């Protein structure tokens, strides 16, 4: 391993933080601050592209590992590493952040410095969550995402921002202390916070069988609130509606994936038997989420709320895929995570562009927008179709794989889940029709400006990636599949134990 490979994860993780610290020293010249943030986030993106380029697809286990002692007693290490699962989530984060900077170019004009500092700190915390292999470090970054996100919502949000920010903070905070308790219990029993060590040795703890179910739930509740899985989803629509556009993009694009990533990594990794044992009710909740989210999205008068509920529905697919314990299901879950990040990120940016011009998200305020804003309408349609799951675009592959997996696990799950695909076509296309087609209903909309250059620069990358992901999913699945395969290995052992006592 050369020097760059050894330090690349540290570099990628802390580059945005370094940028944020430099920003603190910047004079309050808004233009310079924006350009500097863009440069920092692009630099991070370039650095992070080193990961997929030099990633060994066939190798199992973690790559680009760093493991240095940080605190001697309690035994905490600065242990980072990525596999095929976390690799793409890191890249997703670094991909979306520059777009967030672009989309906030004009829309944030008050306290610009604070905004970009928070955005960059948030990026560091998010990358850290996906790269940490030490449970302390993981929890450290996990909690560290809370503050910048809550502040982004609460300071830069819309009318009910304080309520939404506090609700977001309290929901996730209360849920994650259960995970903290579970992590501390594991440390007390194993003397280590190291994920790999705990994973390999957790079975030999004497009191583990009695505690395993509680530990599983401790982790699960933290992740389920973050996802959010029905019925823990109520913070999400509020947070999304009130958040500034960049906040929504990162919230839907990356923050929610922290939950599903956590389930995949920790629930399945550390507690395979409990995962299997609990899978039925979790899958039922996921199905409820898929259908309920879609139905509620259908009746939303508010565009952003509609997209928020569509996230509840899409993330339901991810959970369904994970707990189907099939190779197709897990591959699909990973792919939906990435696809949802891209297309929902795009949708939130597009909604934000409209809000910029009219200061409202009410669907009824619009109509016939395709006439004054043709380029915008085309791009919007493209992203909507990607989100709906049109074949050859990114949404299709993931959902198809998830449904295949769910069907293998239990046919009825596959059948019910498949209705979600239909619902999502309904609510998104109906929304599109109401907003863009027909005559212009409000005269004020006639004079709306079509996309500006920086807006195009923000949304086009999403569209391009959505297309590439749809046409050549193998680029992603080639590295995801081996990781998924090894994630399923302990579960397969679990089955053999059950079958052959």
């Amino acid at each position: 391993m050369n020097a760059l490979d050894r330090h690349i994860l540290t570099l990628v993780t802390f580059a945005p933080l370094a940028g944020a610290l430099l920003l603190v020293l910047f004079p309050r010249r808004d233009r310079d601050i924006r350009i500097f943030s863009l440069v920092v986030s692009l630099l991070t993106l370039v650095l992070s592209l080193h990961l997929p380029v030099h990633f060994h697809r066939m190798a199992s286990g973690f790559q680009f590992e760093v493991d240095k002692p940080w605190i001697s007693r309690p035994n905490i290490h600065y242990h980072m590493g990525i596999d095929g699962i976390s690799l793409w989530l890191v890249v997703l984060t670094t991909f979306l952040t520059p777009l967030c900077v672009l989309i906030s170019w004009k829309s944030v004009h008050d306290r610009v410095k604070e905004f970009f500092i928070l955005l960059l700190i948030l990026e560091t915390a998010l990358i850290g969550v996906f790269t940490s292999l030490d449970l302390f470090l993981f929890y450290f970054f996990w909690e560290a995402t809370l503050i910048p996100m809550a502040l982004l919502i609460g300071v830069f949000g819309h009318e009910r921002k304080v309520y939404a920010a506090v609700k977001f903070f309290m929901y996730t905070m209360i849920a994650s202390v259960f995970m903290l308790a579970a992590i501390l219990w594991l440390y007390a029993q194993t003397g280590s916070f190291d994920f790999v060590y705990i994973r390999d040795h957790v079975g030999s703890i004497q009191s583990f069988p009695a505690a395993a179910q509680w530990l599983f739930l401790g982790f699960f509740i933290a992740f389920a609130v973050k996802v959010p899985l029905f019925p823990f989803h109520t913070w999400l629509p509020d947070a999304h509606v009130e958040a500034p556009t960049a906040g929504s993009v990162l919230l839907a694009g990356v923050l929610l994936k922290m939950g599903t990533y956590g389930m995949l990594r920790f629930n399945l990794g550390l507690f395979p038997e409990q995962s299997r044992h609990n899978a039925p009710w979790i899958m039922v909740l996921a199905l409820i989420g898929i259908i309920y989210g879609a139905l509620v999205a259908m009746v939303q008068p508010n565009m952003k709320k509609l997209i928020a509920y569509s996230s509840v529905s899409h993330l339901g697919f991810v959970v369904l895929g994970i707990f189907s314990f099939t190779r197709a299901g897990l591959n699909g879950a990973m792919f939906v995570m990435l696809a949802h990040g891209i297309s929902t990120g795009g949708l939130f940016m597009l909604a934000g562009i409209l809000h910029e011009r009219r200061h409202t998200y009410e669907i009824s305020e619009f109509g016939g927008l395709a006439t004054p804003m043709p380029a915008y309408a085309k791009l919007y349609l493209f992203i909507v179709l990607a989100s709906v799951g049109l074949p050859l675009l990114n949404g299709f592959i993931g959902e198809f794989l998830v449904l295949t997996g769910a069907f293998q696990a239990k046919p009825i799950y596959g059948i019910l889940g498949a209705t979600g695909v239909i619902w999502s076509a309904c609510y998104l296309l109906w929304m599109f029709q109401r907003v863009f087609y027909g005559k212009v209903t409000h005269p004020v909309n006639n004079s709306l400006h079509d996309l500006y250059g920086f807006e195009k620069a923000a949304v086009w990358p999403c569209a391009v990636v959505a297309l590439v992901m749809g046409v050549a999913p193998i680029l992603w699945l080639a590295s995801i599949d081996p990781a998924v395969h090894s994630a399923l290995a302990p579960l397969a052992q679990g089955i053999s134990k059950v079958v052959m006592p």
Partner: protein
Amino acid sequence: MTAVLAQVQVIPQASDYIRILPELVLSLFGILVMLLDAVIPEEKGPKTLGLIAFGGTLAGLIATWFTSHSPGSAFSNTIRVDSFSIFFTFLVIAIAAVVILSSFEYMTVQRIRAGEYYALILFSIVGMTLMASAIELVMIFIGLEISSISTYILAGFRRNDAASSESSLKYFLLGSFATAFFLYGVALIFGATGSTKIDVIALKLQGAPAPVLVFVAMALMFVGLGFKVAAAPFHVWTPDVYEGAPAPVVGFMSTAPKAAAFAVLLRVVFVVNAPGRFWFLWVAAAVSMTIGNVGALVQTNVKRLLAYSSIAHAGYLLVAFAMTTADNSLTGISAAMFYTAAYAAMNVGAFAVVSHFANAGERYVTLEDYEGLGRSSPLLAATLTIFLLSLIGIPMTGGFFAKFYVFSAALRANLIWLTLIGVLNSAIGAYYYLRIIVAMYMREARKEVPVTPIPFGLAMALTLTVAATLYLGLLPNRVLQIAQHSAQQLLPSATPANTAQIPPPAPVSQP
């Protein structure tokens, strides 16, 4: 009895004085401040005396450093200098130094005569350092009284304000009750064991079942110390006293006397191995956390809010005391020591901001006054936010690691329920700290609140406390090692509980 008497040296030696060097230096500076107060002209007074007092604390820190090189006992085995006592001495003096720095401006703005104020702070830390290093109960009591009496007066220093006088009087009346309880406990334990020396008491209580008298004595001593650390159910005074007392003094008395009292409590609980303490401490910890956090939820006065928060934090700290076996006690002691340090850094810092912002007559201390502070004074707001995040227990801050370490120790001792109560409480607690952050950043100012520039002393104080808070959160290793080393010295018989229940190269059982 003869053996005990034989140890007694009647004439103190030079090494005895070196071992109380910090106390001597601080007392001298305190007297100097009082004397100079009479000769220095009124207009120059506050600044000069403040600087002398600050110099006194620096000299005290240097003296502590000297003392740390000659560990051992002094004055007929009533004082012991070890890394435990040095830790708390250093902490208490450092707190005083920062509080003095942040008081410069406050004295001028509130038109308070400074001489007695600085002298009293110096005298009170003399008492606290004595508490940290005393290993004899009467000596501890003397330290307790020196520190308490000074703080009673400090609480009433805004003489023209009724609330301040009320605060002082309440603190005095309840506080003297509490110290009386403590003294009564000392008397009873002397009756039961025939000694007031902690080592001897520990020796006497070893093995044989403890007589009822010991239980009563321990309970009474806990009442006295529980009052000092504001642990439930002896917490009722806290909100009123904190609300009325001058803000820098609250920063001081919510950290320094607490640290000293916790030092005594650590010695009494763990060295004596106090019998029957487990449920007592368990309940006190759980109730303190809950009452503190629930009480703080509805406060609108920032000082009252932080008063309830200090009750809650005393509760988190007491979690580390609910250890029974010797191995777990080591982790418990070091966790408690680390927590006191982290709490001191963040709380002194928070009160420094509050006292600057309060302005003349402490007019601006409600949540409403903090609205829009993020815009009108971004630096001050950002600093306060760091302290509040640390009080919540957000990563990268000392408060996070302190809580993490305490709960980790508790789970190692299998205190699952207490840990759950603790983590849930810290989640609930996040809400009220968040309210201050919300007010500062997410609301616009509704009334005109003057923002004065940050003076140099305050800037220094804030830099120090922010640096300490972040240092303890990011690089806790050094302080942890000191704490663990001290715990080891305190309980030489215990083995460090580094090993887990399964040995590191655990056999992997293949199915």
